[in-house]
C-alpha cells in the first residue's frame, strides 16, 4: 500500500502514530500497564457513572469538571515540559505530537458526540471500562459505536468538512 496516501487519510483524524520505530509485540504490554491504571481511576473516581455525567450536564456537581480540568492542566504542563526540555522517549526517539487541523467535522461531529455522551453517559474509554466492571449489556453500546464509526467511514466524502 502507498505510504503517502495513508498519511493523507490519517491527517484529519486523531490517530497519527508518530513513532517510526519497530518493536516486538510484547513491548505493547507497557501500554496495557498504563491502561490498567486508567481503568482503575475510571471506576474509583466514578467517571464511568451515568449519574456523574448527567450531573455534569445539569451543573449539579463539580466532580467531572474538576477531573477533566485537572487532567488538562497536568497534561498541558507535561507537554510544555516535554517540549521545553526536549524529553526523548525511553527508546531515545524524539517526541513528536501532530497538530490537529481544523475542519467543520469538529463542530458537527462534536455536537453529535455530545448527544451520544449525554445519552449513554459514557465516552469511548468508559464504554470499555463498563465491560471490565461487569456491565455486559454495554457491549451493545460498543457494537453500535463501531457501527457508527463504520457509517461515518462510508459517508465521509459526502459529509461537510
Amino acid at each position, binding site marked *: 500500500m502507498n505510504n503517502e496516501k495513508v498519511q493523507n487519510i490519517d491527517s484529519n483524524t486523531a490517530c497519527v502514530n*508518530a513513532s517510526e520505530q519497530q*518493536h516486538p509485540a510484547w513491548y505493547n504490554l507497557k*501500554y496495557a500497564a498504563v491502561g490498567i491504571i486508567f481503568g482503575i481511576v475510571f471506576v474509583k473516581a466514578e467517571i464511568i457513572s451515568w449519574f456523574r455525567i448527567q450531573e455534569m450536564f445539569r451543573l449539579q456537581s463539580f466532580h467531572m469538571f*474538576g477531573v477533566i480540568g485537572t487532567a488538562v492542566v497536568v497534561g498541558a504542563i507535561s507537554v510544555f515540559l516535554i517540549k521545553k526540555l526536549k524529553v526523548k522517549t525511553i527508546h531515545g526517539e524524539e517526541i513528536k*505530537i501532530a497538530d490537529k487541523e481544523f475542519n467543520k467535522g469538529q463542530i458537527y461531529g462534536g455536537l453529535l*458526540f455530545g448527544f451520544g455522551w449525554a445519552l449513554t453517559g459514557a465516552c469511548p474509554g468508559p464504554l470499555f*471500562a463498563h465491560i471490565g466492571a461487569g456491565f455486559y*449489556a454495554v457491549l451493545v453500546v460498543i457494537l453500535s459505536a463501531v457501527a457508527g464509526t463504520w*457509517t461515518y467511514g462510508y459517508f465521509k466524502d459526502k459529509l461537510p468538512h
Partner: protein
Amino acid sequence: MGLLNLFKNFIKNKKQMSMMEQIQQPWPWYVAGILIGLIVPALLILGNKTFGISSNLRHVCAACIPAGLPFFKYDWKKEVWNFFFVGGIFGGAFIANTFLMTGAPIEVSPALQSELAGYGLTDFSYMLPKELFSFESLLTVRGFIIMVVGGFLVGFGTRYAGGCTSGHAIMGLSNLQWPSLVATICFMAGGFFMANIILPWILSL
C-alpha cells in the same frame, strides 16, 4: 525522639482509616484528574503515542470490516498498542470493581435523584441505572434509544470530530490545539442540549 513520636502519631491517625478503606472510598476529582493528566506524558515517553481512545473504534473497523472503504485502508497493525491500552482499561476496571469497592450505592445529587425518580429510575446501587442498561431494556423504546442510538452517535460523532474526550479535550487541549477547543465546546454544548432538553422526553417514553 520528638520526630519519631510525631511519625508514630501520624501513623496512628492514618490507621483510623486504613489504607484499604481509603482506597475503597470514591476517589476525589483531583486525584483522578492528576492521574489521567499523567497518561499524556506517560504514553508520549513510553513510545511517542498520543492519547486517544475513540481511534480504537476505527481500528476495529479497519481490522474486521474495512469493506474496501478508503477511510479504513491503513496499516491498523501499527496501532495495535491502542488495543493493548484499551485491554488495560478493561483489566483495571475489573480489578477496581472486584477488589477495591465498598459496595455502597452511588451518591447522587438530590436534584438529579428526584428528577430521575419521576421517570421511574430509583436504583442507584450501580454506576449505571440498571433500569436502562440491561439486555431486557433493549426491548423498550427508551432503552433502545439510549443504548443503540446513543452508542451510534458516540461512534459516528467522535470519528466525524476526529477524536473524543481523551483525544480532543485532554490530549488536544494539553497541546494547545484550538481545533480541539472547538471540538470540546461542541461536545459540551451537545451534551447540555441532550441532557436538559431531549433526554427528559426520551426518559418519559
